[in-house]
């Protein structure tokens, strides 16, 4: 049975390359991937902002209920879905826990630092799974990030509602990333990466990249 790919709304619109990377990793490992076109959004953003997200979460169930496993490249969306649907996995969970793989055969000859995003780290408990996968990428030079577990300041609508506090947190995160002298900062969530990458781009810092794209690198 194929696994269902839940791309997430942000990735569908803004980061299709992350989705293509997930497809290429999974197919390389011999996993059949299905992308049900009826999928929309998981409803997290709505719920977390105080609105009726449950309709979207229920719609997710209608679309993905029949799959044995669903994979999504977002720690945050999976953390939101997990309490409703146990068969949804963040990419690294699916690779490490379900497939039992921690080397997916990627090549990425660059200096990279990794930011563990809050929902992946604390709500989902990803631990070092993404890092274990990254460590086995050929040519990669992984460098630790100071204050790695501290929030980057994104927080969905927080970034707009409390823009100044968000910016202050971002400034500290960007400074920590700059100090690593890495070429890329990787994470498991493109929403946080939009924020971090947007801040880095403003100051001419390294590029933000979803870790799936590094794993897919060949």
């Amino acid at each position, binding site marked *: 049975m194929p696994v269902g790919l839940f*791309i997430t*709304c942000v990735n*569908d*619109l*803004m*980061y*299709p*390359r992350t*989705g*293509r990377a997930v497809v290429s990793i999974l197919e390389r490992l011999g996993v059949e991937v299905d*992308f049900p*076109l*009826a*999928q*929309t*959004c998981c*409803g997290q953003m*709505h719920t*977390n*902002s*105080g*609105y*009726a*997200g449950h*309709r*979207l979460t229920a*719609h997710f169930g209608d679309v993905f209920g029949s799959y044995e496993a669903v994979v999504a490249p977002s720690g945050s969306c999976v953390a939101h879905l997990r309490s409703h649907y146990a068969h949804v996995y963040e990419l690294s969970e699916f690779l490490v826990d379900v497939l039992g793989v921690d080397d997916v055969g990627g090549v990425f000859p660059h200096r990279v630092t990794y930011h563990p995003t*809050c*929902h992946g780290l*604390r*709500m989902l408990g990803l631990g070092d799974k993404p890092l274990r996968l990254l460590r086995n990428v050929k040519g990669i030079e992984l460098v630790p990030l100071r204050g790695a*577990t*501290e*929030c980057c*300041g*994104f*927080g*969905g*609508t*927080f*970034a*707009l*509602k*409390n*823009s*100044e*506090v*968000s*910016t*202050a*947190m*971002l*400034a500290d995160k960007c400074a920590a990333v700059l100090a690593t002298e890495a070429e890329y900062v990787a994470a498991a969530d493109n929403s946080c990466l*939009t*924020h971090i*990458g*947007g*801040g880095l*781009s*403003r100051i001419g810092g390294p590029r933000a990249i979803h870790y799936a794209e590094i794993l897919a690198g060949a």
Partner: protein
Amino acid sequence: MGFAKEARVKLRDTQLRANLHKATHTIRDKRARVVAEVPDWEELREAGRAIKAETMARLPELLEKFEAAATRAGAQVHWARDAAEACSIVAGLIDSDEVVKVKSMATQEIGLNEALEAQGIRAIETDLAELIVQLAGDKPSHILVPAIHYNRGQIRDLFNDSIASGLSDEPAELAGAARTHLRQQFLSTRVGISGANFAIAETGTLVVVESEGNGRMCLTLPDTLISIVGIEKLLPRFSDLGVFLRLLPRSSTGERMNPYTSMWTGVTPGDGPQTVHVVLVDNGRTNVLRDPVGRQALHCIRCSACLNVCPVYERVGGHAYEHTYPGPIGAILAPQLTGKHTSLPFASTLCGACYEVCPVKINIPEVLVHLRQPAILERPAMNTLAGVMARPRLYAASLRFARRMASLIKLRRMPWPLSKWTVSRDLPRPERETFRDWWTRTR
């Protein structure tokens, strides 16, 4: 004023930010070290959570039990519905123009010092940090360290201007000056005022946990002791204390054990205060108790660990919250207690650092999200969005439309509300086709 506006003001204070960063990181690291020493920490947290949940489920019964036991032991128990009632009860019990105070959040919450002052009674704070704040005519900005927003140099200047002269910024010297200043008050003041960390229903015992010993003085030297206790401070049994006395010091000061734990049960003839009053305060708590998700905020034991790890608190400090309880716990407690402060549940990225450290496992992010619901400001727009997103075809069409609109994106300057984004971050450029279009084209 809402949180965002207050925060903006505080963010400009670079000295404040430096002080807060240093202080919160120091306590945060200390806590992490001593918590890591306890192999059954998670079991302890779970035990703490369970006892508090039981307490809330049995609160009316436990309160009556406490009243009966404390009364039997010679204490006089009073009940106050709100802050004003609590203050007037306390004022009516004082037959002196001065009182010494143990650091207490409850008295701050009800505005006791101000109320007493209006009656011509001077309340003398005896906790070092509270004293600093009081001498400065300022307000506390942290649950445990009310003067966390001051550094040593600022405290030296303050003391040299008020209670001493020629001091250096050596902590021991500063503490010595405060001790000399306070000692006379302890010996001469006849009425002491305290809060309580715990109130034991089974025995009628009150418990105060502290570091400096000033509390012990206030609790033992005066003739009259008046304790103001929020009704959620109860524990069912004396044996429950064992769990909390292990959880609290490591979580709050990062110490294995706090230096002073004082317990008293009513009056002990010939020893300590011979007149003992307990004022049980509701002040919004029964309202909080009614909400099955929100009520866990009442489990709080005021350790302040959530403040010390909060990235938002670290940047803006306690005053931006405009309530006695700042930081993550304030963001879920203040709006529930008062029905106001509705911007506070949004003052969080939901990063979950608070939940991770809370010794009684209050799921603060869950309550924050829960409390965001009544905010109906942008509801119509967001509900439309949810409506679109629940309909796949309409969703696909709007994605394509958004893709096309996105080509109009300016990386650096967008009109409001996106200007709130581009003030500090560039916008990403979307690719030529959405993922679903790529999938349909290539499969």
